[in-house]
C-alpha cells in the first residue's frame, strides 16, 4: 500500500480539525474537510483569553511539568495523565509554531512573545493576541489549510453536515455520509480514516456560550454507531454570562474583581427599576453568605449560589438572572479599567453598565466529556479518531482557562499522524465496502424523508426549548438525583414527541427545519448520556456537584465514565484513571492557588 495519497475525512473545521488537516496535507495525503459553516467561522473564534504553554520566559521557573500539575489538579484528577503530559510538553512548540504562522501575539519590549497569567496557575504561561486569541489561532490554521487547498490536497465541503458514519461488517469505519445544507443532497465520503473535530454540544442546553453550530449532533451519531462517549456529565458552567434571548455571552469575571456587587431584589418578582430599589430591599446574597470573600468567592461557589438563588425563584423578575452591579463605581474608573468588556455588554444588551446594573447568569460553556479516545486520539471504532472539545481526554472534571486552545491543537496534531498510520496499514477489502455506502445513503435518505412526512403538530423549536430548559435546570451547576431521574424521563418524552413533529417549511431548498430536526434527535441521545452519567456519579468532582454527595470520592469514583449506546438507555461502565504521574490530592484553591477560568 502506498504511503502517499491516503484519503482522510475530517469532520469539523475548528482549531482541532484544521490542525489535523494541515498535518495530513503536509505529509502528502488528501483531506476531505467537512464543516457545517465555512471553517473560518467555526466556534474556535469565540475563545478570548489565550493559549497556555510553559515557556518560562519570565524567569519564574515554569515548566511543562508544572503545567501538567496545574491541568490535572484543575481537572480534579479525572484526566488520564500521560496525554496531558504529552500536551503540556508540546505546548511551547505549538505556541512557537503559531508565532511562525504569523499570529499577532502581543510582544515584549524586546519583540519576543509576551505571556500573561491566567486562572488556575501562578505562572505567566498564556500567550495572547488581543482579546481574541482563538480567532487569531483559527485564522492562522485556516490560512495554512487554504494554501493546501490551492495545491489540491485539501478539499473543503463547507455547508455540509455529517449525518452518520459508514461502518463495514467488521465495525470498521470506512467513511461517512454528509448532507449538503442547501440542496439536502446526501453524499458518501469514502475515507481511509475519519477524524471527528466537531467541538462541544452546548446547544443541548438550549442557550449556552457556544456557537449555534455546537449541537454535538455528529458526535452523537458516532456514539449511536457504537463509539464510546466518556465523562459526558462534566459540563463546565461559566459563572457570569450575559443572558440573551438568543444565547449566553461571556462576561469577564474581572467585573467582580473590580468591585461588582451581586444582588437580587428581596421581594421576588420586584418589577421596579433596579436603581429605585432601596439598599434595604436588596439581597446581596454572596456578601451575606460569605462575609470573608463577599463577591469574590471562587468561581464555582459563585456559580452555584447564583444558580441556586434563581432556581429557588429569587432571580430578577423571577427569571434566571441576578444583578451584577457596578453603578456605585465612578463611570470614569469603570471606563478605564473595564472599558472593553462593558462595551460588549452594551453592544448586546443595549444598557450601559456604568449606569444600569448588569443582569447575569451562569452559562454552559464547555464540555470536558466527549468521545472516548486512547492516548493517540483513536476511538474504539477502528478508523475513527477524535480531537478537540469533542474528545474527553485532557480536561478531566474541569477545564483550566486557556487550556482549551492548546488541547484542540494538540488533539489535531496527535490525531493526524495516528490517522495516517492507521490508514497506511488498514486492510482495504473493497468487496466488503461495496454496497455499504449505498445502504447507509438510503437509510439516511429515509430518515430525512421521515422528518418531511412526519405529521403530529409538535414544533421542533419548542421541543428544543424544552430540552434546553430541563437540561439547564437540572443537569448543570447543582445536581440532585431525583431531578436527574425526572430529566431522563423528560428526555424520553421529548424523544417520542420528536417523532410527531410537523416541520413548518414547505420549501426544502436550504431549509433549516430538516437539519435541525435531525440534530435535535441526536442532541436528545447525548443529553441522556450527560444526564445519566450525572445521575450515576454519586460524588462531587470538578464541575459535577451534588449537594447530596458534596465530596470527591476517589475510592469509588476516580474513574472515567464510559457510555455505550443502546436503544433503551446508554450502558454505563467505568474505567480507572491513569494517575501515574501526579498523585491525586485534594483540590483546594482557598490557599495560594487561584481558581481556574
Amino acid at each position, binding site marked *: 500500500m502506498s504511503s502517499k495519497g491516503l484519503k482522510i475525512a475530517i469532520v469539523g473545521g475548528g482549531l482541532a480539525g484544521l490542525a489535523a488537516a494541515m498535518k495530513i496535507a503536509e505529509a502528502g495525503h488528501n483531506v476531505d474537510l467537512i464543516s457545517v*459553516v465555512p471553517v473560518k467561522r467555526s466556534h474556535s473564534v469565540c475563545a478570548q483569553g489565550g493559549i497556555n504553554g510553559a515557556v518560562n520566559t519570565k524567569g519564574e521557573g515554569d515548566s511543562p511539568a508544572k503545567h501538567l500539575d496545574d491541568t490535572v489538579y484543575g481537572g480534579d484528577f479525572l484526566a488520564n495523565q500521560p496525554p496531558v503530559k504529552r500536551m503540556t510538553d508540546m505546548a511551547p512548540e505549538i505556541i512557537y509554531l503559531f508565532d*511562525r504562522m*504569523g*499570529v499577532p501575539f502581543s510582544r515584549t519590549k524586546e519583540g519576543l512573545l509576551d505571556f500573561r497569567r491566567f486562572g488556575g496557575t501562578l505562572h505567566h504561561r498564556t500567550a495572547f493576541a488581543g482579546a481574541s486569541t482563538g480567532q487569531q489561532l483559527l485564522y492562522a490554521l485556516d490560512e495554512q489549510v487554504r494554501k493546501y487547498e490551492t495545491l489540491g490536497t485539501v478539499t473543503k465541503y463547507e455547508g455540509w453536515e455529517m449525518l452518520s458514519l459508514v461502518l463495514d461488517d467488521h465495525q470498521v469505519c470506512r467513511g461517512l455520509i454528509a448532507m449538503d445544507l442547501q440542496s439536502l443532497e446526501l453524499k458518501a465520503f469514502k475515507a481511509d480514516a475519519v477524524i471527528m473535530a466537531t467541538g462541544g454540544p452546548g446547544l443541548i442546553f438550549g442557550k449556552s456560550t457556544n456557537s449555534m*453550530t455546537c449541537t454535538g449532533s455528529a458526535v452523537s451519531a458516532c456514539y449511536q454507531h457504537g463509539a464510546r462517549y466518556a465523562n459526558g456529565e462534566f459540563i463546565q458552567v461559566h459563572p457570569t454570562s450575559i443572558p*440573551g*434571548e438568543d444565547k449566553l455571552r461571556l462576561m469577564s469575571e474581572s467585573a467582580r474583581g473590580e468591585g461588582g456587587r451581586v444582588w437580587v431584589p428581596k421581594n421576588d418578582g420586584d418589577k421596579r427599576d433596579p436603581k429605585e430599589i432601596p439598599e434595604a430591599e436588596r439581597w446581596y446574597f454572596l456578601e451575606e453568605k460569605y462575609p470573608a470573600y463577599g463577591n469574590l468567592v471562587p468561581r464555582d461557589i459563585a456559580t452555584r449560589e447564583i444558580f441556586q438563588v434563581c432556581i429557588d425563584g429569587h432571580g430578577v423578575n423571577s427569571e434566571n438572572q441576578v444583578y451584577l452591579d457596578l453603578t456605585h463605581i465612578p463611570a470614569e474608573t469603570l471606563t478605564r479599567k473595564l472599558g472593553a468588556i462593558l462595551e460588549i455588554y452594551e453592544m448586546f444588551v443595549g444598557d450601559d453598565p456604568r449606569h444600569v446594573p448588569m443582569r447575569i447568569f451562569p452559562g454552559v460553556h464547555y464540555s470536558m466529556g466527549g468521545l472516548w479516545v486512547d492516548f493517540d486520539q483513536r476511538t474504539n471504532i477502528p478508523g475513527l479518531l477524535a480531537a478537540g472539545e469533542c474528545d474527553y481526554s485532557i480536561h478531566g472534571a474541569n477545564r483550566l482557562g486557556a487550556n482549551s486552545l492548546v488541547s484542540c491543537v494538540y488533539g489535531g496534531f496527535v490525531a493526524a499522524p495516528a490517522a495516517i498510520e492507521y490508514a497506511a496499514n488498514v486492510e482495504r477489502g473493497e468487496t466488503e465496502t461495496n454496497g455499504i455506502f449505498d445502504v447507509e445513503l438510503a437509510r439516511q435518505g429515509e430518515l430525512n424523508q421521515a422528518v418531511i412526512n412526519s405529521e403530529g403538530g409538535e*414544533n421542533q423549536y419548542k421541543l428544543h426549548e424544552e430540552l434546553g430548559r430541563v437540561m439547564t435546570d437540572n443537569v448543570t451547576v447543582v445536581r440532585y438525583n431525583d431531578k436527574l431521574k425526572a430529566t431522563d424521563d423528560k428526555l424520553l418524552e421529548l424523544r417520542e414527541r420528536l417523532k410527531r413533529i410537523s416541520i413548518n417549511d414547505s420549501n426544502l431548498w436550504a431549509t433549516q427545519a430538516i437539519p435541525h430536526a435531525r440534530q435535535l434527535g441526536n442532541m436528545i441521545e447525548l443529553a441522556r448520556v450527560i444526564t445519566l452519567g450525572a445521575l450515576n456519579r454519586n460524588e462531587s468532582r470538578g464541575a459535577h456537584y451534588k449537594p447530596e454527595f458534596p465530596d470527591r470520592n476517589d475510592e469509588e469514583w476516580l474513574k472515567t465514565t464510559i457510555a455505550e449506546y443502546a436503544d433503551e438507555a446508554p450502558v454505563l461502565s467505568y474505567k480507572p484513571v491513569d494517575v501515574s504521574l501526579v498523585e491525586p490530592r485534594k483540590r483546594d484553591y482557598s490557599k495560594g492557588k487561584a481558581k481556574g477560568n
Partner: protein
Amino acid sequence: MGENGHNEKRRLNDPPRTFKLKIQRREKEGAPARWETFELPYRRNLNVISALMDVRKNPVTADGTQTTPPVWDMSCLEQVCGICTMVVDGRVRQSCSALIDDLLLASGSDTITLEPMSKFPNIRDLKVDRSKMFDHLKQVHAWIELDGSYNLGPGPQMSNEVAQDRYALSRCMTCGCCLEACPQYGDDKYIGPQAIAQARLFNIHPAGKMDIDERLAGLTGDDGIGNCGNAQNCVQVCPMNIPLTRAIYETNRDITVNTLFGWLKK
C-alpha cells in the same frame, strides 16, 4: 457602540407593544424577491436574531398568512464569526449585534427591514454565498510560507507595534460588510478591501514579506487594487474597525515602489 463614552445610553422610553419585521424573501437563487412582514411582541432584550428565531418558530405574517420560516445564517452571535451579516434598515451589519430597541429608536418607525447582502449570490431569504471572499484570499496568497509545521523554534522577533498593527488587520472575519458597501465591488471587477487588507497583514510580517511579489501580483490583475474608487465606505462600515483604507494605500505604495518602478532597481 461605545461612541457615546460614558454618557448614559439612550433606550426607547415608551416602547411599543409590538413591532414589525419586514423581511425580503427569496425561495432560491434566481427566484423573484418578495416582501413579508411579521408582527412580534416587543421585548427589551431582543436582537434581530432572536426576533428571527421567534418568526421561525411560528412563521405567520402580520396579516395572518401561514408562510415558510425565513432562512438566515448564524453561528457565534458574538460578532466574531461574521456569518450573520445582512442589510438591516438599509445598512449592512451583523444581525446578532443589531438590537431591536436601538433600531426602533434610530428609525423612529415601528418596522425593521431585513434584506440579504446584495453583492453575493442570494441562496435563499437572508442567506448568501460568500465563498468568493475565500477565493480572494487564495488570489492574494494570504498566508505565510512555512518550511514545515514541525518544531523550528519561535518566529521572527518584531516590535509590539508591528504586532498590534497586524492584529488590527487580522481581526477581519470575512463578513463582507466592506464589499457590500463598496460602490466599486460587484460584477467581479474589483477584489475589494477585505483581500487587500489581508495581503497587507502578511506583507508586513518579517517572514511574510518574502512573498510580497506574489501577493502584489494577486492585486495587480484585472480586478486588482487599481479599481479602488476611494469612496471609503469600507472603513465606515467595518464592524471590526479595521484600518482598511490605510491598508489599501500602504499597498498602493508598495505597488508604486515594487511593481511600477521596481524594474528601475535592477
